[in-house]
């Protein structure tokens, strides 16, 4: 268990650094989570993170990487819906890293 | 006596045994037990048949969780957690059927 402290707010994380409470998330927290993953956030990164948050909101799960790739392709176009693009943004696993930054639990089907 | 039943009547015979053994009082349906108190359930008629002997209650949050809060059988009173506590204090004895 750890905490992230920013802007006078302190939020809990689990032993792997994922947010304990999804509702604690805001962009500042997302930025701190990105720093802990050594990811320099760009507009493209936020696009994926926001997509994941919307996906979670709709289906209550963080999608497996194969599902994420396909769903992003459907929504944002084939040039973004491929694993090369997503791994360039999130080298240690798009589902795992982007989910953490998005404040979601570890993806279901992340093996 | 207050009987508390938390099993679906179509999965386990708990509610049936409660009815067979009991002589009256109240039945509070909670958790999967609430399905017994929904319209169209195959157990509905058996509950109807004992309404003269038992006051029937079902726990609202459990009905809502299962998406059946809008199809509660006639004659069944929906209670919240505070109502649950009131029932437990109202009756001399209470049996939680497992």
């Amino acid at each position, binding site marked *: 268990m750890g905490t992230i402290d920013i802007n006078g707010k302190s939020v809990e994380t689990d032993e792997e650094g994922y947010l304990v409470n999804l509702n604690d998330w805001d962009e500042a927290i997302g930025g701190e989570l990105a720093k802990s993953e050594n990811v320099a956030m760009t507009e493209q990164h936020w696009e994926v993170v926001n997509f994941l948050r919307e996906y979670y909101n*709709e*289906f*209550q*799960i963080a*999608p*497996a990487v*194969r*599902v994420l790739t*396909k*769903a992003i392709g459907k929504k944002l176009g084939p040039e973004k819906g491929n694993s090369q693009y997503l791994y360039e943004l999130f080298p240690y696993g798009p589902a795992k890293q982007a989910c953490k930054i998005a404040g979601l639990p570890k993806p*279901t*089907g992340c*093996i | 006596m207050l009987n508390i039943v*938390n*099993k*679906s009547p*179509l*999965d386990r015979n708990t509610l049936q045994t409660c009815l067979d053994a009991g002589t009256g009082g109240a039945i509070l349906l909670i*958790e*999967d037990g609430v*399905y017994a108190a*929904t*319209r*169209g*359930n*195959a157990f*509905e008629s058996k509950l109807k048949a004992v309404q003269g002997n038992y006051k029937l209650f079902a726990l*609202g*949050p*459990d009905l*809502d*969780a*299962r*998406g*059946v*809060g*809008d*199809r509660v059988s006639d004659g069944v009173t929906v209670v919240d957690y505070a109502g649950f506590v009131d029932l437990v204090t109202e009756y001399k004895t209470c049996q939680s059927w497992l």
Partner: protein
Amino acid sequence: MTTKKFMFVNRKAPYGTVYALESLEVVLIGAAFEQDVSLAFLDDGVYQLKKGHQTKGIEMKGFEKTYGALDDYDVNKLYVDEESLAARGLTADDLCVPVEVMSRAAIGKLMEEQDVLLSF
């Protein structure tokens, strides 16, 4: 890798026991292996798909919405026993995702065609 036919058989109501959620999670995890997966819902298992779960009051995470993601995981063969629906006063219109309603005998036949059956 050769593809096998997997059927997940769901016979328990949601929330009262953990079987429904466990089954759903295994389905989602198993989908990574790209097998031929189908789900059957019998007995109280049909309650898993009942529309309108509001789980705030019991302070549990609801998982009705997650059935909607099955299609993204290429799991789109959902078979529901019509006798089980009828015994619970339900019809296909009461369910949260599109399914194929069929007789118990027809589901039994499908079970015979499977390589692996996982019962929850």
